[in-house]
């Protein structure tokens, strides 16, 4: 049973991978559409990693873009100095690790805070990171870094995106992952049942930061241009919107929402003045009419395995009051 599921997942992933190659070879995916694809992949990583923190562990973070920027800058600075794929691999690892380290340092004191207070503290943290990058010499201040070497092709894009999904899914289906979820459900009960809640909050937070760092590194190595303003409060909100639209506590929801929003956003780019207006109205509309997001806290796989009625049952969302 379990093996069968693993095999299906593996086959699906290989299928997507092969399909990508075929579409690129046949020219269906051109440079422009590949840029859209790359953005989607990066957003999937950002959203699923934020979902780990906010949706699964219940720690409301408004500073995900800050961690992304650390990954981006560290990777960019390394690839500028170390040539070739070695530099890129090193850059991704160093960028992600630096983000995770900052995640631990920021998380330890601030994760004692609850709900709104944590949200504001993480927002402040991301702003501080941005101001630091604005003032540092090595990041070239407000002008930013440009002409960065490009490494992200379909192979890397697929490997890193799929890899993130597999690792996050693995983690959530393990005892430490369940410990994180129990923190969201009821922190005091979890602590009394033997869960070191601080440890798992910091774990989820720094793991989320790690993958945000990966996404940042990919961004730097695909769009070859960085400036601090790319990682402002609005970027953190963009990521949060994907998580909320897909459903807090649903990895597949985040993936679907990332794809969906990318399609909408690509379509809206024909009307740049109206893009943000429609985007913001959509956000309000989702909250008013389907606050639990597309999938609530269920996964697509669960829905497909004979739980279809639940899709229309309307659960989640309102129940998670204590998570925030």
């Amino acid at each position, binding site marked *: 049973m379990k093996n069968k599921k693993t095999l299906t997942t593996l086959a699906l992933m290989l299928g997507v991978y092969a399909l990508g190659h075929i579409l690129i070879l046949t020219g269906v995916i051109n440079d422009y559409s590949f840029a859209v694809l790359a953005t989607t992949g990066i957003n999937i990583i950002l959203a699923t990693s934020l979902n780990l923190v906010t949706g699964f562990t219940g720690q409301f973070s408004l500073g995900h873009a800050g961690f992304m920027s650390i990954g981006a800058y560290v990777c960019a600075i390394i690839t500028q100095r170390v040539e070739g794929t070695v530099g890129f691999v090193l850059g991704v690892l160093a960028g992600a690790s630096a983000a995770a380290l900052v995640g631990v340092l920021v998380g330890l004191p601030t994760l004692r805070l609850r709900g*709104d207070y944590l*949200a504001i*503290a993480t927002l402040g*943290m991301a702003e*501080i990171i941005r101001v630091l990058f604005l*003032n540092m010499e090595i990041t070239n201040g407000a002008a930013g870094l440009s002409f960065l070497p490009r490494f992200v092709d379909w192979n890397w894009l697929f490997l890193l995106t799929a890899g993130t999904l597999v690792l996050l899914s693995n983690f959530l289906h393990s005892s430490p992952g369940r410990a994180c979820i129990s923190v969201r459900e009821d922190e005091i009960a979890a602590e009394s049942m033997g869960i070191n809640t601080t440890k798992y909050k910091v774990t989820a937070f720094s793991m989320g930061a790690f993958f945000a760092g990966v996404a940042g590194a990919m961004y730097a190595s695909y769009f070859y241009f960085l400036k601090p303003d790319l990682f402002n409060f609005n970027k953190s909100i963009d990521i949060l919107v994907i998580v909320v639209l897909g459903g807090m506590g649903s990895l597949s929801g985040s993936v679907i929402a990332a794809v969906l929003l990318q399609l909408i956003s690509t379509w809206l780019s024909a009307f740049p003045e109206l893009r943000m207006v429609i985007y*913001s109205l*959509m956000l*309000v509309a989702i909250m*008013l009419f389907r606050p639990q997001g597309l999938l609530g806290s269920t996964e697509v796989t669960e829905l497909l395995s004979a739980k279809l009625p639940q899709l229309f049952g309307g659960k989640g969302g309102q129940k998670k009051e204590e998570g925030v």
Partner: protein
Amino acid sequence: MDVFLQQLVNGISLGSIYALVALGYTMVYGIIKLINFAHCDIYMIGAYIGYFCMTFLGLGFLPSLLVAMLGCMVLGVLIEKIAYKPLRNAARISLLITAIGMSLFLEYGTMFFVTAKLRTYPALEGLMAKSFTVGGVMITMQQVVIVLTTVVLMLGLQYIVKYTRAGKAMRAVSMDKDAAELMGIDVNNTISVTFAIGSALAGAAGVLVGVYYNTINPLMGAVPGLKAFVAAVFGGIGLIPGAMVGGYVIGIIEVLVMGAGYSTYRDAVVFAILILILILKPAGLLGKNVGEKV
């Protein structure tokens, strides 16, 4: 010393604006536990209303201020009725995201109608354009007007909250919504009043900032809004005197940091203070810590 005093005067002017905006954040948080992200954009709209009154209608400072306050009051109440009220019993994160959505809507909606370009407030004339020097410190008439307006509005607010029926209802609802309702207080009405007052104060702050800094744009609310929120948290969120104290402290600190030559770091300093306060005394300067009941 003179330099320091000069900075202090500038800091008090900036702090007045933060304090006015912070009051709205703190009142709304006190009553429905929502960080009203759209509040900073109401402040921006206030600045635009003031601009249109002065530029196209040729109104003076005071009428423009009143029109802006009135306009923002209506806008604040509308936002609450349309976007927040249906979510009264929903998860708090849904409410927060709605507020973020409303904020983006106001910013980019305004941008759509008036374009992103900077607008300049008309130059002040007569008495308003004057300035004078006291003991080596230059004080402009604008600064006097800003501080004076703020003090008058704050006194008015204190009066409303302490001595009127609506004010008492506000305090009751912020302590215990259900109990207040059982005592016959119209909770929905009280929440609307809170939004109305908070938004009017933000509208006033918008006009004052336009007068003080001259230029306005649709995204002008975002950063000052965050800082005003920091001010509210600093003083103890939900507490009206806290927002006033916090506004002035943050304003003065920011001006001092700029005066010391670190103006590019001023936002970082404000946020660092925020994080320190949250960690050391999360209930704020004037607040009491409350634990969760098990």
